[in-house]
């Protein structure tokens, strides 16, 4: 029953452009596509922040690395084939996460946060200045189309389907991890690392493995972003993008699958829909996002999902 509901919801999400056409504009599809890319990115970050208790402020490094990898691999190998470009994105995301992870997993809390931030800034600086490879401040244009055999996913509706299918797969993977002995071990690391070590868990390796899985998925999200806009900006690997993912996770609710998804919907609305309702010279979307974030940090640490849960409990007790 539950599996059937999930399958139905997944099918509805994936086929959105086709059943929404009578009443929704193509802009809705683009908006939802970008929200889903943000959701994949935020879900991967939540594996660290919410599940394993590793507050990374450098997650955009992997998103950016994946975006560049997809674009550059396509150009260097002169192919648009998804297995090559998306595979390169996942591989580079994983490799970079392994490299950075080795340096950061033994630190905790604020030190972990600052280290991930600093190392990600190095990645950003390389992207920004290595003009010959990344296009530097001009960005990487001419990212190839995502092709699977002869199917071209670059048309808006198919591009959306590619993103939505990846999103559904990412949710399934992270759900599978969360309920597995592995996911529970990460929860243990979050709650009491000392006790985990005393139980015989190599916690540094556990944290590193989570870091690599999260980096891989973030790299895939970056590649989807590159396919969508056919462009990679150095800002994709920048601090702003790391903060955006972090805010998405916290506003939605860390440590849950629903939280980052709800958060990405909310952040997308504020970034993309709210400005269109305001006078064009009033560029305050970032300020609104900041205020919303501060509001959640001060009054609702558990995010939207936590608020909803608390409300449900209150209603059911009556």
């Amino acid at each position, binding site marked *: 029953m539950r599996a059937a509901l999930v399958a139905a919801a997944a099918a509805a999400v994936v086929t959105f452009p086709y059943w929404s056409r009578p009443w929704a504009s193509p802009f809705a599809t683009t908006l939802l596509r970008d929200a889903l890319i943000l959701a994949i990115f935020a879900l991967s970050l939540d594996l660290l922040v919410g599940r394993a208790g590793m507050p990374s402020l450098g997650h955009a490094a992997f998103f950016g690395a994946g975006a560049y990898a997809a674009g550059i691999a396509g150009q260097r190998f002169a192919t648009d084939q998804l297995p090559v470009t998306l595979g390169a994105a996942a591989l580079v995301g994983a490799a970079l996460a392994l490299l950075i992870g080795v340096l950061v997993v033994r630190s905790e809390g604020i030190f972990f946060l600052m280290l991930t931030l600093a190392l990600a800034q190095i990645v950003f600086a390389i992207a920004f200045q290595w003009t010959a490879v990344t296009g530097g401040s001009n960005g990487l244009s001419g990212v190839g189309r995502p092709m699977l055999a002869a199917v071209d996913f670059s048309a808006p509706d198919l591009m959306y389907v590619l993103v939505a299918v990846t999103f559904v797969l990412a949710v399934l*993977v992270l759900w*599978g*991890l969360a*309920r*597995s*002995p*592995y*996911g*529970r*071990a990460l*929860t*243990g690391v979050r*709650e*009491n690392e*000392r*006790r*985990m*070590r*005393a*139980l*015989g*868990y*190599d*916690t540094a390796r*556990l944290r590193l*493995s989570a870091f690599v899985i999260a980096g891989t998925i973030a790299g895939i999200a970056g590649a989807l972003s590159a396919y969508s806009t056919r462009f990679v900006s150095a800002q994709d690997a920048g601090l702003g993008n790391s903060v955006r993912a972090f805010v998405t996770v916290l506003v939605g609710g860390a440590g849950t699958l629903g939280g980052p998804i709800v958060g990405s919907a909310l952040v997308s609305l504020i970034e993309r829909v709210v400005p269109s309702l305001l006078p064009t010279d009033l560029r305050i979307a970032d300020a609104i996002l900041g205020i919303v974030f501060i509001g959640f940090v001060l009054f609702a640490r558990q995010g939207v999902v936590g608020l909803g849960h608390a409300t449900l409990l209150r209603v059911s007790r009556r």
Partner: protein
Amino acid sequence: MIEIRDLRRAFGGVMALDGVTLTLADGERRAVIGPNGAGKTTLINTLAGETAPTGGAIRLAGRDITRLRPWQRARLGLAHVYQRTELFAPLAARDNVALAVAARRGPYRMFRAVPRSEYAESEAVLERVGLAGRESVAARALSHGERRQLELAVALAQRPRVLLLDEPTAGMSPLETARITELIAGLDRALTILIVEHDMDVVFRLADRVTVLHEGRVIADGAAADVRGDTRVHDVYLGKAVTVA
């Protein structure tokens, strides 16, 4: 089972352990007593691998473990009950124990639910320590005494060869103390136990042998009955005015 040779640990200029040599036979139950600051907790933490020794060596079942990390020692069969409870606060008692059960099978099992057998085993251990019916309660919602019981359950679920108990009855009511003492007394005789404890009733109920630490040195070591009558022990540990019942 455990051989400690000339173990030293300095904190700044203070020698918390100043050349401790101890041997625990297989299945032996050894109490380590001594006044505050004698180095008892440092001894336990050094055995568990959480504090690195400044000198000396530790062997577990013949194997040198002096340089091994805590998780490696745990894999070799060392379990640690902390003086201050170390649990997974928001997790249910059942999940706290299940993490110990799962540790033996390794954490890299992805994409399948936690096997029921691990929960069944966890519930059996909880029943053994007297926490039947409390399986679903979060660790932080348990009473202090129950958390100590849970701490013991977590350690037992590791199926250790050696159990390090750092004041297992700390902060417990007399009734709770009596219960947990009987529980430890009833454990498998093959299990080697090293217990640090202030409560002399508990010490003499549980220990085959007693070691007295004072300022990081062993000042007395012998069968429980002998140490009970040792006047030096009375002097350093109990104060001259107090006698051991």
